[in-house]
């Protein structure tokens, strides 16, 4: 059986009766058992329930009963998205035993459509990181070369889809956390417009910038899942009304006559040569397809990393102050402690990156520094938004490489947080401004590592974004994952 098919192909195979859901799910579980030792994408595998659910769906199909549109599609969920009855650890010691009493809105929507939740996948602790090395449970490895990082923080999502351990995954993107692993693992990853997808049940890190987004093998699959997970939710008042948007509609509309701007500040110094040449190649593909391409300057991008890490750290230090390990958490007796001493003791079990960000957050918010850092960061954020508004008066879409460099070796940059932060330069603009962005696998480097191209569109222009991404995808012929 070919596990490397797209979710869309899976649907037609099941519909035509060429494959049963049980067969496909069982084969996927076998695959997980075979490759997990090498790549460590999953933190929890719910194989028994998955197989049972698969049998149930097969039965419904046989009896011609009504079945949800996912037809038993096996999906993995980033472990900072709540799933009732399955652990949600955020890859942290602090939540190693936490079982959420409810499903996140995105999870219940998928379950309603008869998707099968195969398990929970690895991430940087509380989604803070861009390599998945900061997981309490150990790093996830890139299936294209297991000595290399898979990107992050949704590394488990990127890897589980790339290594054929799930058809689709849901990740979360606060500063590029869906797009970075998608680029590094040669899969498609979308950060939707802020508010398009409910965050109810996503463990908060930086509420004003994060969004849940799908990771898949094709643009069609991303559009299919976005249709299911998007829309208003009474549990999240930041959600937007999508009207009667259908993201799978007219995906093949093409880019003829569309104006595409290459962001100068994301393609200049510090970009790997092969990444730069892949970007130029993508631009000429778009020109071949009839798009008008030009360069566009967004000088606020130069301040975006400082602004992003100021805002994200500030929100993180506030959000993570709730973890006191009393009502849930790991075993640690309270005997002999006064409250503050207890809290400080248990909270020293946060990992290094989470601790660093909380310290930074406390600093930038403290008296005397607020105006110098946080307020300025918010102004930079507004400046980015206003420059983007201007840019989108001139062009339909923006283009840049998703990541400025190729995947690098595990451990190579782990002790150099600032260098890691700077790698987010191309992805955080979409988060600070709330606009949608997608990473499309485009090329493989001479060293055999994936290169992704990022497209950005204006707020709620997911249709246009997906159409261009689809057009770009159709120009590529990429090799199969070598694992």
């Amino acid at each position, binding site marked *: 059986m070919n596990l490397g098919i797209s979710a869309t192909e899976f649907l037609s195979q099941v519909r035509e009766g060429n494959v049963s859901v049980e067969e496909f799910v069982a084969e996927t579980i076998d695959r997980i058992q075979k490759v997990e030792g090498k790549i460590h994408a999953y933190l929890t595998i719910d194989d028994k329930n998955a197989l049972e659910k698969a049998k149930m769906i097969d039965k419904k199909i046989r009896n011609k009963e009504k079945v949800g549109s996912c037809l038993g599609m096996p999906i993995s969920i980033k472990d900072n998205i709540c799933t*009732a009855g399955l652990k949600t650890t955020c890859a942290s010691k602090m939540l190693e035993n936490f*079982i959420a009493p409810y499903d996140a809105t995105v999870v219940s929507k998928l379950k309603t459509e008869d998707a099968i939740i195969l398990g929970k996948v690895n991430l940087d602790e509380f989604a803070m990181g861009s390599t998945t090395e900061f997981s309490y449970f150990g790093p996830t490895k890139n299936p294209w070369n297991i000595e290399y990082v898979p990107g992050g923080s949704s590394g488990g999502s990127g890897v589980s889809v790339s290594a054929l351990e799930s058809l689709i995954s849901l990740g979360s993107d606060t500063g590029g956390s869906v797009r970075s692993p998608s680029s590094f693992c040669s899969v498609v990853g979308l950060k939707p417009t802020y508010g398009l997808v409910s965050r109810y049940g996503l463990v908060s890190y930086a509420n004003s910038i994060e969004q849940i987004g799908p990771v898949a093998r094709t643009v069609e699959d991303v559009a299919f899942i976005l249709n299911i997970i998007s829309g208003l939710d009474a549990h999240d008042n930041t959600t937007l009304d999508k009207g009667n948007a259908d993201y799978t509609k007219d995906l093949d509309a093409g880019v003829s006559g569309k104006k595409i701007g290459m962001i100068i500040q994301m393609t200049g110094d510090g970009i790997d040569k092969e990444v730069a040449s892949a970007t130029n190649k993508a631009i000429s593909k778009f020109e071949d397809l009839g798009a008008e391409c030009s360069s566009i300057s967004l000088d606020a991008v130069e301040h975006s990393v400082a602004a992003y890490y100021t805002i994200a750290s500030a929100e993180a230090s506030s959000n993570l*102050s709730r973890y006191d390990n009393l009502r849930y958490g790991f075993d640690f007796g309270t005997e002999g402690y006064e409250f503050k001493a207890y809290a400080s003791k248990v909270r020293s079990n946060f990992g290094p990156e989470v601790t660093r960000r909380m310290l930074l*957050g406390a*600093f930038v918010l403290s008296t005397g520094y607020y105006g*110098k850092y946080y307020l*300025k960061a918010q102004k*930079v954020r507004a400046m980015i938004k*206003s420059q983007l508004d201007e840019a989108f008066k001139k062009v339909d879409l923006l283009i840049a490489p998703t990541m400025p460099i190729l995947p690098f070796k595990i451990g190579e940059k782990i002790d150099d947080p600032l260098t890691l932060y700077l790698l987010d330069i191309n992805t955080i603009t979409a988060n600070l401004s709330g606009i949608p962005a997608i990473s499309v696998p485009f090329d493989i480097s001479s060293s055999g590592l994936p290169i992704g191209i990022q497209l950005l569109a204006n707020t709620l222009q997911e249709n246009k974004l997906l159409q261009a991404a689809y057009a770009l995808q159709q120009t590529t012929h990429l090799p199969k994952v070598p694992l």
Partner: protein
Amino acid sequence: MVERKQIEHLGNLVKIELKDPEKYIKQVEQILSYFERLDKVEFDSDKMLRLEASVNVLREDKHETYADDGKPLIEKLKKDQNNFIRAPKMV
């Protein structure tokens, strides 16, 4: 310059006993000095304040009961004697 005393104060603010404060001093200092650039950005005043003008939308403050009297929620709690949560002394 970030000093040991400052890092320990920050640790105190976020309620984390820092096992190795020295390690954080250098990194936090390096990151903060990178953040310094924010102070040098020139803003075109009016436009830049738009984001701050966004409004909060709150849902109606309505009482909702948990399904099954909150049993699924209570089941997941770390319980000690007689279904109570044990907390450290407050002084």
